[in-house]
């Protein structure tokens, strides 16, 4: 397998992991809204907290994480851009 193919496979897997996390925070937890709302976080009902703030925050953290991880994949395969590009 060429370096390019190996790079693309890793990138694809990374994309899938990110999208699984994304689906969890955007869709899966809200399938159980009523159940989650019986629990509480910071004093807020949990489902309310997630839709008002929690999932949003998870997306922000996820994006910084995913960008850093992808940069590492770039470096491993020698596809990292020079700063002065």
């Amino acid at each position: 397998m060429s370096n390019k193919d190996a790079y693309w496979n890793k990138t694809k897997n990374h994309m899938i992991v990110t999208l699984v996390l994304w689906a969890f925070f955007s869709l899966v937890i809200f399938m159980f809204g009523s159940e989650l709302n019986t629990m509480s976080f910071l004093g807020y009902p949990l489902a309310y907290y997630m839709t008002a703030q929690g999932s949003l925050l998870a997306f922000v953290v996820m994006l910084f994480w995913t960008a850093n991880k992808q940069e590492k994949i770039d470096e491993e395969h020698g596809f990292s851009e020079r700063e002065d590009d």
Partner: protein
Amino acid sequence: MKGGFVKNLPKVYGLYTGGFAVFILIMAIAEQAGVSAKNIGVMFVAFTVLIYAFIGYLSRTVQVDAYYVAGRQVPTVFNGMATAADWMSGASFVALAGGVYFGGYTYMAFLVGWTGGYVLVATLLAPYLRKFGCYTVPDFIGTRYGGNLVRACSVFVLFIASFTYVTAQINATGTIASRALGIPFELGVWVGLISILICSMLGGMRAVTWTQVAQYIVLIIAYLLPVFWISNKIGGGVFPHLMLGDEVARLGDLEQQFGLVKNSAADMKAAGVPGGLKYISGPHSGVPDGGAAVWKYLSLAICMMVGTASLPHILMRYFTTPSVKAARKSVAWSLFFIFLLYSSAPMLATLSKLALMDPNLPTGIIGKSIAEVQQIAWVQNWSAVKQVFIADFNGDGILQLNEWFMRGDVVVLATPEVAGLPFVISGLVFAGGMAAAMSTADGLVLAISNALSHDIYYKIVNPKADTAKRLIVARVLLVIIGAAGAYIASFRLTSILGSVAWAFDFAMSGLFFPLVLGVWWKRATRQGAIAGIVTGILSGLFYLLWVYPKFSVPIFGQVNEPFLYIDHLRFGLIGAPVCLVTMVVVSLMTKEPDAATQAMVDATRIPTGKAVLGKQH
């Protein structure tokens, strides 16, 4: 000079923010000195708009790549701010908190949808489109699939989606300009348009970028300052986002105490409740029971997320970063800056609801005698312009929860006044709303006119046109598109044009899969893309006409029951799957793309190496 400018950006915008803070202080002092509320509002809007115009003038350019992609040198964090301003529309600014106020948990599917979409942007599209080196979104589709027909089809989808959105934005600009400056709405629309054009005409994307950063700073200060102030004032806590748990629980108790009652349409009509005013009939934090409610929540979130990842005016912001790496990081920063406002909207809604509902607070009105409430100054002011309304259905002289009607915008525009904050804050909120509406309108008008000038005029009609001619055409189209949007907005057709959600559904129906498969599936062919775009957008459009009563009654002579609860806000759920299936089937039936196209896709997937489209194309 250019390098110097980019390096000095933190200093420039630091000074700008400091200057704006000084301006707010001067206005506060002016208020104490007896300057009228109206004049303070005028000064806030006039001062900020003049600054944007000045930035727009300084950013003028005669270079094609500066005009289309800001010379691809916008640093990560600043592009994040510009995208956040591009994204958060006048509607987000003035209507989001109101939506949460009336809709509670159910409405907050929009919050998840309008933020979660950025995960799709970052993983599936932004870095790859940046590497491709295109100027516009149709530029990618036209080059990847090859041919004028597919390019023209994608311009068509872009036009429908963005134009639906832009009239709403110009409408919002007009509304705010007319209220703040005290001029008629029709005039306000044209004042708004001129402000928008000054920011974008001379410098294209470069000017829009630097004004959007300035607009973000104004709008975020204008949103956060009142939220924190009100929270501290009514005892909600120093940091509302972490400390309103008790208040949310208290709202649940108050809902029990006052009772959540649904008014009958006949009662509301008899009482003469003005159109567009709403009352609280659902729980604030409670989750409605049943599978249908879950599906409604999820389907709305899906439409907004996928739509976000297909909107050209957002995708094109990531064409302006210096590198692929920067494009990825920039999406993360965009979402961070958006999060600051979106996570505050539910807090503002909570505080605003509590201020009106809690009988222990001096601002509480529910449960008081109607005669007493009608004496309150802000109630009188907003009643006079038909933004709030009281109907004593049970005739007991006491204001019940279901007897208090309000327009959603009032939550943002009037809460500072209700909580007894000085008027300088209301003036600031006007300036913030204006910034939000202008920045989004700028981005949209530019997205449409760039697609028409680059993809239709230069790539299809006259490929021999020189730089000067291309930029003249681009600017003329910008003025025409803006004027057309303002002309339509001046008729106040919002009730017919429907919701901004439609823009998301249109974009998702016709653009999402052609864009994503263009990067992620080498086998996708030109014929597949054309078939997908055409069937996707037409099936979505047809379903909208069928399901939305205002269209279906004149066309089909009846009101149609939505299929699987897919109503007019969610018609992308029809268009996008049709687009996907058609595109895959037709692609597999047609000949595999040639070696050159496959190589092009390979180059797109790797951050280093030459862009597919060169610096000048």
